[in-house]
């Protein structure tokens, strides 16, 4: 069985200084986002537009996908459709085999994480080099990214220094970020020059032009795609937007929401293969149709993967991305993942206080916290809640529907706590582990009211 989010979070928090550092670092990013958003008087209007364009697109998805495929093909792009992650991996493997390629670089693709492409190809003896700095660091460490925009955010520079010392023979104990980045750069330059095939993600696919846009800060998508003879871009089908002019909304929202930058350093527009190059596009479903069919959850597909909801989430900041054990962690991951495997991810919608901050920062206005609440209802209805919880809830529901019984239980409870504090203040009481119990008062409000207040007219 999967370890629960709560258990992994507890492990993460056991190192409190590191938790504080993680929390502060991400909060800093959240504040940068606030400043950037404050800089645009039309911010809330932009969010509304972003939201409406995505809503519209999701309701007309098949048409836009058809239009996009047609245009992309006319541009000379080879379009593939993949029903699930496995098919996606097979398609890519087939292309690799056809060209007898050994050296592959990859940049900016959370989708390939979702489909576990690296593992798949590794089993076939093919090595893929992740070229984005953070991705490369976690790849060296055989870890999964812990954040969709800042994949190595769980690591401190000392950790990176150690990893590079082991894999890139940098000086032991040299934690200078510039030194370490330079080492990574030299290492990756070689990989780029040698690469025969580049895999990239897609941020936006434009139906009217058949082209797609990849947003990066390091420029690795370009480096890869411009040197390799074959370029494969992978996208979930929800990346589609109707028109190029809509980029004016999304490019402004994306980087501001993600890191507080006005725009990503590179917004690379790909329209067709350059002479002699082969360009493939793999469009993936992998559970998205199913999510589209769930009325309460369909609009989670509006997500543009900015990770603002991660950075603002008080739970994510204190539990780390690995505690979610999904390719996409954080609040949005918790509403996407139950769709893929409800049983395995049944605890994720509960890994939230429903504070609603995620919904407030989301640039495309996904009602994330409401969907968390709704997933809870679905998970319980489908029988994935643990049985002790179910019994407790049934008892509670019964008590609250019977006023006199409720009062009796309340009285007993308070009396019990007063007479035998150890009944509640013991190690079986999770609340008490790190918190005191409230001191039981001598009477309830109702009891006081009957003696001192007015008597209800009813």
């Amino acid at each position, binding site marked *: 069985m999967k370890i629960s*989010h*709560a258990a992994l*979070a*507890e492990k993460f*928090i056991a190192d409190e200084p590191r938790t504080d550092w993680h*929390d502060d670092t991400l*909060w800093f990013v959240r504040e940068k986002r*606030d400043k950037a*958003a404050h800089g*645009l008087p039309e911010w*809330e209007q932009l969010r509304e537009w972003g939201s409406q364009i995505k809503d519209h697109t999701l309701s007309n998805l098949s048409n836009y996908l058809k239009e996009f495929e047609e245009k992309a093909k006319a541009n000379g792009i080879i379009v593939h459709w993949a029903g699930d992650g496995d098919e996606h991996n097979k398609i890519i493997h087939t292309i690799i085999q056809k060209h007898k390629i050994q050296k592959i670089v990859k940049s900016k693709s959370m989708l390939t994480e979702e489909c576990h492409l690296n593992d798949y190809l590794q089993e076939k003896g093919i090595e893929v080099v992740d070229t984005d700095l953070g991705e490369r660091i976690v790849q060296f460490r055989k870890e999964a990214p812990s954040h969709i925009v800042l994949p190595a955010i769980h690591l401190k520079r000392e950790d990176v220094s150690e990893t590079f010392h082991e894999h890139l023979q940098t000086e032991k104990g040299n934690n200078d970020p510039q030194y370490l980045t330079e080492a990574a750069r030299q290492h990756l330059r070689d990989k780029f020059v040698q690469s025969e095939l580049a895999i990239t993600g897609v941020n936006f696919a434009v139906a009217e032009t058949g082209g797609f846009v990849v947003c990066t800060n390091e420029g690795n998508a370009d480096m890869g795609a411009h040197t390799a003879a074959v370029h494969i871009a992978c996208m979930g089908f929800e990346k589609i937007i109707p028109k190029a002019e809509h980029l004016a909304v999304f490019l402004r929202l994306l980087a501001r929401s993600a890191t507080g930058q006005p725009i990503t350093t590179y917004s690379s527009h790909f329209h067709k293969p350059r002479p002699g190059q082969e360009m493939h596009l793999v469009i993936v479903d992998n559970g998205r149709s199913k999510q589209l069919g769930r009325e309460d959850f369909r609009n989670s597909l509006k997500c543009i993967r900015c990770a603002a909801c991660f950075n603002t989430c*008080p*739970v994510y900041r*204190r539990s780390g991305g690995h505690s979610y054990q999904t390719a996409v962690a954080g609040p949005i991951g918790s509403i996407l993942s139950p769709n893929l495997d409800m049983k395995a991810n049944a605890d994720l919608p*509960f*890994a*939230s*206080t*429903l*504070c*609603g*901050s995620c*919904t*407030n920062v989301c640039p495309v206005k996904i009602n994330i916290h409401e969907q968390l*609440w709704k997933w*809870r*209802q679905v*998970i*319980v209805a489908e029988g994935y*809640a643990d049985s002790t*919880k*179910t019994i407790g*809830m*049934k008892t509670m*529901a*019964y*008590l*609250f*529907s019977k*006023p006199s019984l*409720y009062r009796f239980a*309340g009285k007993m409870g*308070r009396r019990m706590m007063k007479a035998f504090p150890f009944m509640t203040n013991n190690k079986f009481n*999770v*609340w008490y*582990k*790190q*918190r*005191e119990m*409230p001191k039981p*008062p001598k009477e309830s*409000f*109702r009891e*006081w*009211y009957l003696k001192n*207040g*007015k008597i*209800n*007219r*009813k």
Partner: protein
Amino acid sequence: MQVALFIPCYIDQFYPQVGIATLQLLEKLGCDVSFPLEQTCCGQPMANSGFASLSKGCDANFVENFSGFDYIVAPSGSCVLHVKEHLQDAAHPEKAANIRKNVYELTEFLTDVLKVEKLQARFPFKVGLHNSCHGQRGLHLSSMTETMTPSFSKPEQLLNMVTDIRLSKPKRNDECCGFGGTFCVFEEAVSVKMGKDRVAEHDDNEVDYISGGDTSCLMHLEGILKRQGSKIKTIHIAEILNSSL
């Protein structure tokens, strides 16, 4: 004006003084307040745990108790939000709809319905306000740091009418305290860490009290403060607005 007082179950059982302060405050301000005697709970603990389907009996009891009033007022943003968003009664859909429309959290009732401009209250202490998420983001009792809208705060507006109070803001003014209903036990480690972090920011401001509109948040913070042996106390905003120290 017929006002029904809704006292959430944990206030009834553990913090009667919050109910008393609310009642006295509303009466001072001229409301004709009734306390329906057969009330229990709003059903939120079940619903937020995924068991909304079990709360029908509880909901029906709520509707039976609270129909026929002009307003229903409770000293809890969280419970009010739950009633507003989720109260259903198949047998009496109109009554349920009326309640959803007329239920108010205490501070918004004071600022928006009673339009209170003056209070006879004195509280000579330094107070850090904790904004509960359900009150703030759910009921919009104050502006939020995430959205780019003009800033306001209904609880602060009221606290500023209190004589001799000194208000202070924590560094992260609207970060969640980590209570979260059953979250506080099922995700104990995160919940406590969140609470400790809230407490630390108020501690930095050297407050005497942490106050707010939701007793559930305060109960959680109080539990942490007491365990730490802190001098800081918690107090519901109704108690401050009703105090005459």
